[in-house]
């Protein structure tokens, strides 16, 4: 069992409070996944010509200022790091691919959690309630965000094994369920040149989407082909630069509820995570059909 929460703002005033509301949703899902928690926030777009990295260091005293200095030495500019617990967000004056590669090449002790224009991924093992407070998530404004609480079944509990998993620039995936064919698929994806960092089954699903989209598939097409190629149980939520997508396995092993009000669109593993949102009592609520891709994006709402 794991818990998923997704929230998409339809008004600028709601964006201001999105971190607070997503935190409430995540805490409702805490008993579905007490092992670790993670979020992806889409916020504060990097200026044109720059990109944003979220980096993780297991070393609590890590010198993020020094790293930021090195990055501005390499690429110009000079933005200080925004540090949240074990993570830091750094704006770099180059594209996200270059910036990410530079960190991997020069600082193997760090983990690139996300790269892109607006995405920030934070994740950590331990109780979701503590995670929300430790990372100061309530103060974050965002256009949309995804959250995950993990009850581990397929692999060990570490920060790296927590969700969301990055699946390309400004893309990430959270998963409730388990996959059976991840070992073979991981080897195939590695042969295709896709980087997979852990033995986690959900990371393979993220890598699969990365590969499909690299080969030219749209997100919808990639998710539809996942129905054929991924063997197992899942509710997936995928964060994109403009919104998020939801897909359940065709036999509906794992739950999902969706809801929409004038101010927001939300999805969660259970309704109780939606009940904490303002106006939930009057919002439209429905269960997404299994095996069908649902997408919300800025233009469409």
């Amino acid at each position, binding site marked *: 069992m794991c818990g998923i929460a997704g929230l998409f703002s339809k008004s600028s005033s709601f964006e201001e409070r999105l971190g607070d509301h997503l935190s409430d949703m995540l805490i409702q899902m805490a008993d579905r996944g007490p092992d670790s928690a993670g979020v992806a926030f889409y916020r504060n777009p990097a200026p044109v010509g720059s990109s944003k990295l979220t980096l993780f260091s297991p070393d609590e005293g890590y010198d993020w200022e020094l790293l930021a200095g090195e990055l501005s030495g390499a690429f110009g500019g000079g933005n200080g790091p925004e540090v949240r617990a074990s993570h830091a967000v750094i704006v770099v004056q180059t594209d996200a691919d270059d910036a990410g590669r530079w960190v991997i090449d020069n600082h193997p002790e760090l983990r690139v959690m996300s790269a892109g224009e607006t995405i920030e991924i934070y994740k950590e093992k331990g109780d979701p309630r503590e995670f929300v407070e430790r990372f100061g998530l309530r103060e974050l404004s965002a256009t949309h965000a995804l959250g995950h609480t993990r009850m581990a079944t397929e692999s060990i509990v570490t920060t790296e094994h927590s969700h969301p998993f990055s699946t390309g620039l400004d893309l990430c995936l959270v998963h409730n369920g388990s996959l059976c064919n991840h070992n073979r698929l991981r080897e195939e994806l590695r042969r295709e040149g896709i980087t997979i960092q852990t033995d986690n089954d959900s990371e393979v699903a993220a890598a699969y989407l990365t590969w499909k989209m690299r080969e030219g598939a749209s997100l919808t097409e990639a998710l539809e082909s996942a129905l054929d190629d991924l063997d197992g149980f899942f509710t997936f939520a995928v964060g994109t630069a403009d919104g998020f997508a939801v897909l359940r396995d065709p*036999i*509906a092993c794992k*739950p999902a*509820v969706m809801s929409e009000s004038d101010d927001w669109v939300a999805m969660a593993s*259970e*309704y*109780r*995570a*939606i*009940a*904490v949102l303002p106006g939930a*009592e009057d919002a439209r*609520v*429905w*269960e997404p*059909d*299994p095996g069908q891709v649902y997408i919300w994006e800025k233009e469409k709402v």
Partner: protein
Amino acid sequence: MGTAEQTVEVVDLTETTIRELNQRLHDATDGGPQNWRITHPNGLHAIGAGINAPLEIDIDGHVGYYCAGMNKEANVRIHGSAGVGLAENIMSGTVIVDGDTSQSAGATGRGGLVVVRGNAAARCGISMKGVNIVVEGNVGHLSGFMAQKGALVVCGDAGEALGDSIYETHIYVRGSVTELGADCIEKDLKEFHTAELSGLLAEAGVDANPSDFKRYGSARKLYNFSIDNADAY
């Protein structure tokens, strides 16, 4: 009961825990309050599970998993939608949902009536053993799987594998059926069935013409072992 005794016990679930509520409902077997209104259910699990008395219960809002599970005698009305396992193993009484239900509504139920005004998701009436279920909307895949007794009435459409491995439950569907499950076949709507269906529609307060429905049931080739079927295993 005189009007003076028709007081309604109101329980607000933002102030009362599920355990406290359910304990009070279990204690209300005789002499306790008979009419209850539960507010702010907020998707919480196991609301009103295990009631064993002829109580009248209204729930204002959406409920979570296993609402009114194992219900005996009580009439429970949910003014909202319900999560997984609504009225699971219901014994008697009625459970009525104004909205939709998630999967496994009325699963394993042995008696009583479950009414869903909206749609029920997958596995509605799975392994039902005597409960009657009336769904005004659609049901999802694998509804009536291994259903043994009672009737499942679907006023809308049914999904894949309807009535898979069914025993003796009567299934009535007004709309389309995506696909029948193993050993489930269409059967004649005989006078007995039209009467049964009319009664259930009336009891559920649904305005529909019984002759618009088709009946489905067991071909009885799967649960009666026949040597001719040996190659099917």
